[in-house]
């Protein structure tokens, strides 16, 4: 029995033929999460139902205003995008891909405290694929790592095993933001001590590696230490997305069209 467990640990995970079985088992496991959150959801819907008319009217007014402001901003955005497309064409650079987003609901968080995994309610049936980026309202949250038929799991950027290629928005200096197993900070490695980097710099995805499309905000630099004699600075950054709140996240789905990065990278 021990041998069977060890075999599954070391060998079975590499067999591609078992991917289907794994997906089914994962759907089953995610169903358990769904059952476990039923009381919470039921309570939320009761609270929703009991919300006062006054409150709803207030919300409605606020949302309409917000919508107006956002629509105003979008008008500029369209013009700017057109301009950028023209410039990129002039530079013979690849076109930006228009990404569609899909809203998914966060069912739960994995019970394992060492992992930062979200359980989502959309799966392969909805077009979710492994590797698609996960976005919050404020910035990049993570990526899809496991997909079942009607549920998926996403790894947050703060997980110990996660790393995302980033660049400083101000000057394009590139680095890699690694998760530290802590929601509050990422570690930026291999930035030379003499590099131009300052507190509060915005880090966006660089698009290198071909997994994340370029330009999504990831984190802001929150601490820089320069140990005497070390070649690299110790840099920490705070993720922009609220990784542990919010019921809804966006999954960026690549639409048909030119890729954002070279075809070789894909």
């Amino acid at each position, binding site marked *: *029995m*021990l041998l*069977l*467990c*060890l*075999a*599954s*640990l070391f060998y*079975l*995970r590499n067999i591609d033929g078992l991917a289907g079985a*794994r997906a089914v*088992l*994962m759907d*089953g*496991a995610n169903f*358990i*999460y769904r*059952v*476990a*959150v039923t009381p*919470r959801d039921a309570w939320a819907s009761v609270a929703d139902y009991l919300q006062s008319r006054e409150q709803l009217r207030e919300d409605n007014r606020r949302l309409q205003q917000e919508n107006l402001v956002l629509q105003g901003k979008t008008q500029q955005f369209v013009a700017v995008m057109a301009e950028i497309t023209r410039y990129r064409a002039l530079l013979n650079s690849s076109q930006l891909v228009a990404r569609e987003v899909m809203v998914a609901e966060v069912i*739960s*968080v*994995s*019970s*394992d*405290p*060492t*992992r*930062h*995994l979200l359980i989502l309610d959309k799966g392969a049936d909805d077009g979710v694929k492994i590797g698609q980026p996960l976005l919050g309202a404020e910035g990049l949250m993570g990526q899809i790592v*496991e997909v079942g038929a009607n549920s998926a*799991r996403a790894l947050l950027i703060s*997980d*110990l*095993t996660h790393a995302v290629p980033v660049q400083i928005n101000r000057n394009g200096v590139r680095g890699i933001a690694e998760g530290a*197993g802590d*929601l509050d900070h990422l570690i930026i490695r291999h930035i030379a001590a003499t590099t131009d980097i300052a507190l509060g710099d915005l880090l966006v995805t660089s698009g290198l590696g071909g997994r994340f499309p370029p330009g999504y905000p990831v984190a802001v630099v929150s601490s820089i230490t320069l140990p005497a004699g070390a070649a690299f600075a110790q840099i920490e950054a705070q993720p922009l997305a609220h990784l*542990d709140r919010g019921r809804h996240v966006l999954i960026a789905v690549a639409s048909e069209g030119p890729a954002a990065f070279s075809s070789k990278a894909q």
Partner: protein
Amino acid sequence: MISSANALWTVAASLLVALVLHAIPLPFDWRWYRPELTLLVLFYWVLALPHRIGVFSAAITGFAVDLLEGDLVGGLAVGAVVATLIILFTYQRIRQFNLIQQGAIMGMLVALALLVESWLHQFLGLPAPGYKFWLAAAVAIPMWPVVRKVLRGLRRYFEVS
């Protein structure tokens, strides 16, 4: 009433319920204090019915928890099997202990299972909990009397044997 020998579904059902309770959402940093209920329920049944519930059930339970947590499948299964073997060798002695002693033993067994899991994870280069898994084991100790009380009630009521 269900005939005694066939009441093993009680075991399966209680393990499933423990699994669901294990999946209850907690705030991010509170997850360290999750008491590994599934393991405690498993240990109770091994202690109560060592001739029926053994390493096979332990492995299945471990697989289920691994799947639930999104870990490498098999890590906790190895830990659960090792802990179950210890109970199988010593169940006659453990049964004689009082509640507090039993709770301490169960805490240690939970710690052992988690330790084996974290060793395997470290060996495979996955994130391991460091020493924080002791928290789960510590929470398991006060949980044991509750688990035992409830499951003993179930066992007597459904005449599981």
